[in-house]
């Protein structure tokens, strides 16, 4: 192990009451590490003395691929990072390149983007809720959330033909016009899902066991979050009101009326409540957006071959998991000179050790779930 190791595995084990520390590997093949995350746990009995995350099992070199593809060709690749919120990834990338080229997407495209992105936020949160609850032992919410997420995926499928890796947006706008009945579908979905969210809450929010498992588990303060660069619902649950949709509005977010739910304790339960509230806020945004989609073109005037001027750009959006940023350096050619992604999952995962020290093994699972990571995005 190197110097940066949290665990100091070579150090002699400290005996606790006639027993030794136990080092166990959680993952990469483990039902609750959400993919191929490997966590090395140092345990005293069940108490966690330290953790170390080993990542990279899903590394595909997305950033390097970006340097070897044209701007247009790279667009589908970003969908494969956070594959449960592919629309957000595409939005961030397209907006970053547009900003670099000084192009602005037309208003209609922006509205469509907002509708799809917020739908995707709900889908992502639903998937998070189902798997998180499953990790804590409640099996049933998983099936409820997947049932309802299906409706979102159906809308995606009708819109662009794909369900998961949607590749919904193009640099300069959207490729596809909304299909006939898109607005009706979205509105139907809104009235369909609102009572379903209440249903999830009925199963969990006041459930004694759920409260015991999540209250005061994985507490992290707002200051710690900021120091570690943690963003998204994890940051907001610690009481920091920071949401890029309000802080530096992109797409058409400045035109909508919505609130940023925040928590107070920064524990797993607050993160749960924040995400539940976010789903409801997303419904509000979608409702306003879908009612106000303006007429007009869906693509801005962009050249066939995209050649941004020399320069660099950092553009970030509020993905479901936190701040998703793209840093692109252009040398004026058709391919980025350097492309760097700031993935929320990777940064948020760094808070794991801070959150679980002194807790029990079972809490490690709860905390991994509550951070809401997607390994495709962590490893890229």
């Amino acid at each position, binding site marked *: 192990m190197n110097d940066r190791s949290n665990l100091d595995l070579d150090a002699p084990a400290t005996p606790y009451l006639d027993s030794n520390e136990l080092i166990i590997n959680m993952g990469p093949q483990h*039902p609750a590490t959400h993919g191929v995350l490997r966590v090395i746990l140092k345990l005293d009995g*069940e108490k966690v003395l330290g953790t170390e995350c080993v990542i990279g099992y899903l590394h595909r070199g997305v950033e390097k691929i970006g340097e070897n593809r044209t701007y247009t060709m790279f667009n589908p690749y970003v969908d494969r990072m956070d594959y449960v919120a592919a629309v957000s990834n595409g939005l961030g990338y397209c907006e970053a390149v547009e900003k670099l080229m000084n192009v602005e997407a037309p208003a209609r495209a922006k509205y469509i983007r907002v509708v799809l992105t917020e739908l995707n936020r709900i889908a992502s949160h639903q998937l998070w809720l189902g798997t998180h609850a499953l990790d804590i*032992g409640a*099996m049933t919410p998983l*099936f*409820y959330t997947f049932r309802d997420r299906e409706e979102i995926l159906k809308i995606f499928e009708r819109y662009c033909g794909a369900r998961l890796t949607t590749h919904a947006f193009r640099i300069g706008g959207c490729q596809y016009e909304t299909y006939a009945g898109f607005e009706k579908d979205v509105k139907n979905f809104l009235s369909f899902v609102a009572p379903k969210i209440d249903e999830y809450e009925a199963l969990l929010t006041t459930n004694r066991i759920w409260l015991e498992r999540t209250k005061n588990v994985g507490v992290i303060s707002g200051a710690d979050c900021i120091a570690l660069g943690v963003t998204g619902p994890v940051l907001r649950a610690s009481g920091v009101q920071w949401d890029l949709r309000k802080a530096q509005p992109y797409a058409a977010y400045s035109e909508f009326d919505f609130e940023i739910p925040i928590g107070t304790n920064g524990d797993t339960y607050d993160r749960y409540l924040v995400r539940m509230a976010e789903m409801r806020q997303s419904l509000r945004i979608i409702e306003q957006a879908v009612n106000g989609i303006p007429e007009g073109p869906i693509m801005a005037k962009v050249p066939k071959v995209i050649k941004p001027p020399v320069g660099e750009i950092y553009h970030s959006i509020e993905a479901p998991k936190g701040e998703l940023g793209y840093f692109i350096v252009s040398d004026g050619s058709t391919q980025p000179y350097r492309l760097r992604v700031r993935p929320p999952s990777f940064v948020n995962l760094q808070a794991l050790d801070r959150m679980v020290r002194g807790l029990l093994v*079972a809490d490690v699972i709860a905390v991994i779930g509550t951070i809401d990571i997607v390994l495709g995005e962590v490893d890229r």
Partner: protein
Amino acid sequence: MPNFIMSYLGSTVTPGEAGNQFWALIYVFIIFTGVSVAVMAMNWLERKALAHFQIRLGPMRVGPHGLLQPIADALKLMLKEDIIPTEADQFVFWVAPLIGLLAAFAVYTVIPFGPSQAVSDMNIGILFMLGVSSLGVLGVVVAGWASNSHYPLIGALRSSAQMVSYEVAMGLAVVSAILMTSLNEQGTGTLSMIGIVQAQQRQGVWFIFKFFPLGLIAFVIFAIAMVAETNRAPFDMAEAESELTAGYHTEYSGLRWSLFMLAEYAAMIAVSSIAVALWLGGWMRPFPNLLHAPVWDFIFSLFPALTFFGLAAIAVVGVVRMPSHSFFRIQRVGLAGFAALLAFIALLLLVIAVAGRSADTSLAARFREGIDYVYWFVLKVAVFMYLFIWYRATWPRYRFDQLMRVGWKVLLPISLGVLILTAIVGVVAS
């Protein structure tokens, strides 16, 4: 020899008590196959019920509505490669599932399906039951230790601590029920399972309603402790899938693993039987005092037949609703056959109920009585089985320290309090 065999038929005690080895063996055989079939049925039912809780269909392909799924699973598990890890302690690894299974099955010798429908009526029946069923923990610990792997070890330690802790609250709750049996003229209580049910019969009240709410609280404590005791959700620490992959049986596969499964379900049925015998009046039918006219006896004795008719009707509905595509022909025929079988059993039960409706000592009457006893007992146990599934579908899992806190700081004081209060109320009442 035939005399020896036939002589028992007129007796009103268990074969063990009558000293009739032959019938005891027959009973053991019936119970062993009965429990094995019940475990299979429970396996199917759990998957189906859980699926329907979770808006799924569950097994649908193997047999009509997946009815043959448990058999297919059993076959698959038997044919699987039997892996013993090289690092494992071979002998202990081999013997661990057997310990669990033996402990789970040995309990059934004293379960009172009826006043004479048990293998034996031990005078320390309940002690025997608690003692033997807690031997199951040995199988778990030994399995976790012999696997020589971290996850099973942690799982085994968790579940041993859990089972031992909950045994305490469970035992105290049981004692308060036993105290209630001593409320008679002689002031003599009993530890015999059959004696406990008979005490409820004599006092004319199920112990769950005795000294309301004391009996109820003791029952609830037992009902909670028994879920923990059998390592089921929400107390399924030992096999907390999301934390410890599969807990103590992580390294087990194939037949050995299925023995653990069998032991788990058998233990669930066993503890439910204790709860039924101690608090829910065992084999007694509902309202024996309120509705005691012979006509009510007759009506209640129709219930077994009606139940099977109901099941047959459900199967018939399944046949009718099955799509008429030729692909489903075999399934339709199979389900219709199953419905016919159920209807045949129902008819048989109906004939017995009618033939044995008089309360004399004829063979038919005794047979009818026996079926009634077993029916009501099994029905009450089945309710508990359903509750087990329901818990699993509804609740998240407790954390280990919370589980211990519930056991020691909540259940134990309450059960102690109930015990003391029961004793005081019992003395005052007599």
